[in-house]
């Protein structure tokens, strides 16, 4: 539709999945992204987040058939400039929306740059002011007459407040640009909360408010960055304190669920006005414009808390408290739950196992999902020490290493893995969020690293690399690409081979790029529609044609064009006959190989 509109001076590039988009955006720059968030490899909000993360500086417009108000709202919060619904907008409307989106994004970018520059510039005079006042307070205040000492204290307190404000602004700016590194580890929530309560006691006393830890509070371990989590609890506490009437209390409680730990902060304040509720986590949001001055807040605390909790793979929210006031809650993954995820339990028992050393849980889960499509089981290690322990306990066929790990860097991990005799020649792939630290690093040059990928990860390339190095093995079970959605067939085939089942041509093409197969099993209907697209691609990495067995549950005949392909076998209409035909095919493959050897 857009390409027909000659008045729009644009060059249009079309990609059909998120990994292709991420790859494209990593290599080239574009002026605008038009996204349908119903892609084979990314849907809904996840697709919007990934597109935004792949190019945070590029305006993103969502164009979808899905008329969903709440998704539209979330899309805009996640960084999209507009949410357009197919059928409700004409081409000219789309073009106008694209121009507006570009302009809005440009202004947003200018604003972010401005905020960053101003914040840094503010620190220089602030350093002089707060430094001078701090020295006076520390040395001379005792010798001053009371009224002057009081004025000095006011100047000093307010300079500190200004420092906090500038820090908050910089924090949020860094967080939004994805430049904050999190150090994940096991954190005992109760003692962290006690620490936060202690640190805020003085602040609470200033407001005539008490903070109490609920008696039923249990000890619970979560996986988090302790400094960042402390910042979240501090922000929630200071928010609750500021909105509490004098002589009231703020109650903190911790509840341990099966997968999540829930932390709640209850105040007895006036509650959040209904029309302000959607804005609570927005930047500079204050229910009443006078609040900022009256309460001494920056309007950034809750926004920062939400950004941090998102990065901790958790959830933050609030509700009216029974009897007045508000309860804020934070849910974080239990340490035990996260520890349980380290072993890929959903993979087939005989799947090839690889180890992923990555401390970001969401990234790790996403990678596991991708690697499962090429038949790999992915175990996680969240730190260097975890990785060394897992590698010693299980023999992995490949290891993926994130350069940044909480207890050391990926390069030293690889050095130590290479010292283990069983990993001297194992495929190791580096994943790095920091393009500045490249493979030219002196130490890394001798480590025999198979590939070096920058984040966002190019999944196609990763899967190709892994498939080439890992999935090949002379003594391995045969591999079948099964293009169908029939589970019974997949189950029957998995008796005799490793089966990768996909249900679309696109997915089949991806699987073919990612790994070699000995045989393809196609549903007849798919074979008909797919033959021009898929059949020419049915080749392994050496260019050999992959034999095809066509299967029809309905017993239908093959399409004539498919029959013309010499590699097609006859149609099979029962699972038993299909398995028999597949066995034959695989046997003749082995025979062929042995003849070549003889």
């Amino acid at each position, binding site marked *: 539709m857009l390409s027909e509109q000659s008045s729009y001076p644009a060059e249009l590039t079309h990609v059909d999945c998120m990994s292709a988009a991420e790859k494209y955006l990593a290599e080239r720059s574009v002026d605008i992204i038009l996204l349908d968030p119903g892609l084979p490899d990314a849907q809904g909000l996840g697709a919007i987040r990934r597109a935004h993360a792949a190019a945070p500086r590029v305006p993103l417009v969502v164009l979808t058939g899905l008329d969903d108000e709440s998704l539209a709202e979330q899309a805009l919060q996640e960084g999209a400039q507009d949410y357009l619904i197919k059928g409700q907008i004409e081409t000219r409307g789309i073009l106008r929306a694209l121009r507006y989106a570009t302009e809005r994004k440009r202004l947003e970018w200018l604003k972010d740059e401005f905020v960053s520059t101003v914040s*840094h510039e503010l*620190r*220089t*005079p*602030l*350093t*002089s002011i*707060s*430094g*001078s006042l*701090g*020295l006076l307070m*520390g040395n001379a205040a005792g010798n001053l007459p009371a009224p002057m000492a009081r004025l000095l204290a006011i100047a000093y307190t307010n300079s500190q407040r200004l*420092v906090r404000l500038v820090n908050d602004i910089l924090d949020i700016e*860094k967080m939004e640009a994805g*430049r*904050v*590194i999190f150090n994940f580890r096991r954190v005992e929530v109760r003692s962290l909360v006690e620490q936060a309560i202690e640190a805020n006691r003085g602040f609470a006393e200033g407001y005539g408010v008490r903070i109490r830890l609920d008696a039923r509070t249990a000890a619970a371990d979560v996986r988090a960055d302790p400094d960042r989590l402390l910042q979240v609890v501090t922000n929630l506490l200071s928010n609750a304190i500021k909105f509490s009437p004098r002589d009231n209390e703020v109650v903190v409680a911790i509840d341990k669920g099966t997968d999540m730990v829930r932390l709640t902060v209850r105040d007895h304040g006036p509650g959040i006005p209904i029309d302000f509720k959607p804005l609570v986590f927005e930047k500079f949001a204050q229910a009443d414009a006078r609040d900022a001055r009256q309460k001494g807040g920056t309007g950034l605390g809750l926004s920062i808390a939400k950004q941090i909790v998102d990065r901790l793979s958790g959830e933050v929210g609030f509700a009216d408290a029974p009897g007045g006031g508000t309860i804020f809650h934070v849910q974080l993954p239990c340490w035990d739950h996260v520890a349980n995820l380290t072993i890929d339990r959903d993979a087939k028992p005989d799947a090839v196992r690889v180890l992923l050393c990555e401390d970001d849980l969401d990234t790790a889960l996403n990678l596991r999902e991708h690697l499962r499509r090429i038949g790999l089981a992915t175990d996680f290690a969240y730190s260097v020490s975890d990785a060394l322990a897992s590698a010693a306990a299980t023999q992995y066929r490949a290891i993926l290493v994130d350069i940044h790990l909480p207890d050391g860097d990926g390069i030293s991990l690889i050095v130590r893995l290479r010292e283990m005799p069983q990993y001297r020649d194992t495929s190791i792939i580096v994943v790095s969020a*920091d393009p*500045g630290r490249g493979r030219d690093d002196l130490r890394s040059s001798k480590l025999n690293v198979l590939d070096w990928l920058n984040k966002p990860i190019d999944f196609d390339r990763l899967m190709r690399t892994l498939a080439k190095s890992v999935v090949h093995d002379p003594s391995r079970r045969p591999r079948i690409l099964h293009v169908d959605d029939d589970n019974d067939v997949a189950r029957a085939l998995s008796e005799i081979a490793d089966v990768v089942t996909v249900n679309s041509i696109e997915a089949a093409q991806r699987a073919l790029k990612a790994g070699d197969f000995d045989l393809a099993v196609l549903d007849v209907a798919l074979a008909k529609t797919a033959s021009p697209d898929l059949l020419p691609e049915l080749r392994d990495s050496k260019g050999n044609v992959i034999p095809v067995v066509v299967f029809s549950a309905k017993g239908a005949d093959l399409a004539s064009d498919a029959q013309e392909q010499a590699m097609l076998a006859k149609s099979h209409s029962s699972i038993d006959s299909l398995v028999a035909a597949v066995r034959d095919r695989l046997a003749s493959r082995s025979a062929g190989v042995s003849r070549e050897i003889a």
Partner: protein
Amino acid sequence: MTDIRILLVDDEPDIRAVVDVSLGLDPEFRTRACASGADALVMAAQWSPSLILLDVMMPVMDGPATLANLRKDPRTAYIPVLFLTARTQIGEIEHFVSLGAQGVLAKPFDPMTLAARVRSHLPLPAGRHAS
């Protein structure tokens, strides 16, 4: 007991004044200040300070460039350098340290504890050195 010589390099006169007073809280510290990287190179070579406090963002020759030049001159190559900066993101701290700095102090700093923090970055007392 010998004096501990601190060379402060910052283009902001007010910050030089505050740092000077803050470091003065430690009776063993003797502080000299200059306003540019070029001056710092000359002064460091002549005065042989025990440690250099170096501002990152300065016109003409910035902190990292000054550090690189200090490392090239055998008279100043060994002097420990602490960066003083308003930019303190984790990645940046690692970057500064990888350039050969001893550490990074954030602006705004707490003037009452600045001297103690600088002291913690000093090399071992002279008596323990082989030279």
